[in-house]
């Protein structure tokens, strides 16, 4: 059932400070809406619970990509199209550029924001695995100040984050120190455009003399939140990826089976997801 739009209110104060004041003045009353590619779908389906919304669209303080020598800071209101167009995202953060390029259609990428993808907190979302392996740092902001938190701590449970009702996600910072790493990303879904993934992996590894010195695996749809596969990473660290890959792959599959908790839902089954996740990790290892 379609919602009755006249029951909803939306304000657009137009500046970051004014939005933060609105959130501070009536705690819990307003829900932010950025590109609306999640919330407007909920509205159309008659399941948008928030009745009062505050618009973040078109606020310049939230839509920026700032590059310094050692870091890139991305405003939460940056769209996937903005990310795809940025040369430093393309050169230094291929996993993020890749995720942006397969987040729905072009029209969706023109509106959907990186901040919305994180805060919406779907375990199936495409950017979180990349942000997890890059060990992004978030800045959360409210009328009373800002705080920085590692992105790895942001997701508390299924669709639950650290964000307080008076806070916005302000920015996402990535350190520019991944030049010696091999990267890998693959999304498995029903089709390329549009489809939310059944399983997705974003990965980085540093290999020296045929041995994995460091490996980072970020996954979508394998746990109740976007997550690093820490047990699998541990099982693979210092393993050889020279000629004899068998034992390395076996160790990865055992560790992965122990830590992934996929579910059955309309998009896929737990069994399929677990099997595909193992195959993706193997594909990454074979490419090292």
């Amino acid at each position: 059932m379609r919602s009755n739009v006249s029951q909803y209110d939306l304000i657009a104060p137009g500046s970051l400070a004014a939005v933060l004041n609105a959130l501070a003045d009536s705690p819990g009353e307003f829900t932010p809406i950025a590109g609306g590619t999640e919330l407007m779908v909920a509205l159309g389906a008659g399941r948008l619970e928030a009745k009062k919304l505050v618009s973040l669209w078109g606020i310049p303080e939230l839509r920026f990509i700032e590059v310094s020598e050692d870091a890139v800071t991305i405003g939460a209101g940056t769209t996937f199209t903005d990310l795809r167009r940025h040369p430093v995202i393309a050169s230094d953060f291929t996993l993020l550029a890749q995720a942006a390029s397969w987040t729905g259609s072009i029209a969706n990428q023109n509106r959907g924001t990186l901040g919305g993808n994180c805060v919406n907190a779907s375990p199936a979302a495409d950017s979180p695995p990349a942000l997890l392996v890059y060990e992004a740092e978030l800045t959360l902001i409210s009328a009373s100040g800002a705080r920085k938190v590692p992105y790895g701590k942001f997701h508390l449970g299924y669709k639950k984050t650290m964000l307080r009702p008076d806070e916005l996600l302000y920015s996402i910072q990535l350190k520019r120190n991944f030049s010696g790493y091999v990267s890998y990303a693959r999304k498995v879904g029903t089709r390329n455009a549009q489809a939310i993934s059944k399983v997705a992996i974003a990965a980085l590894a540093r290999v020296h003399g045929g041995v994995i010195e460091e490996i980072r695996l970020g996954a979508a749809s394998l746990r109740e939140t976007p997550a690093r596969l820490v047990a699998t990473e541990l099982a693979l660290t210092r393993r050889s990826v020279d000629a004899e890959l068998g034992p390395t792959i076996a160790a990865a599959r055992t560790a992965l089976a122990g830590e992934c908790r996929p579910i059955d839902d309309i998009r896929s089954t737990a069994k399929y997801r677990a099997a595909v996740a193992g195959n993706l990790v193997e594909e990454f290892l074979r490419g090292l």
Partner: protein
Amino acid sequence: MSAITLTINGESKTITAPPMKRLLDVLREDLHLTGTKEGCGEGECGSCSVLMNGELVNSCLVPVLQAAGANVCTIEGVAVEGRLDAVQQCFLEEGGAQCGICTPGMILATHHLLDKYPQPTMAQIQEGLAGNLCRCTGYKRIFNAVESCAKKSHA
């Protein structure tokens, strides 16, 4: 209700509507521009695509207040003085339109694509139109129309 001013196909319009009303419904119900179609209402099909400040968007997912002050181009704004523009003409010649439900969105997505890539590769065409679903043509004729348009504008 909010009074909202936006530019539609070059003309400034002020409407009074609930701020969360979908741009799609404002176009069709308040402005009587029924060329913009509704397929899915959830961002999947592209039949409601319009250009907002030059960017392709699905108007079913835009609350009208977020379009305040924007420049919106719908299919009604594509023809020039009642004559089909180059993209429309190519869709006609190549059989890129059948029932017509996807066509307005396809045409605007094609404009957006050719703005970015005047000589698109087939992969770019496919990616650019991947958010626009068609139940009739099988896509081949649509791709032919886009290619033919790119070729003509190059010639």
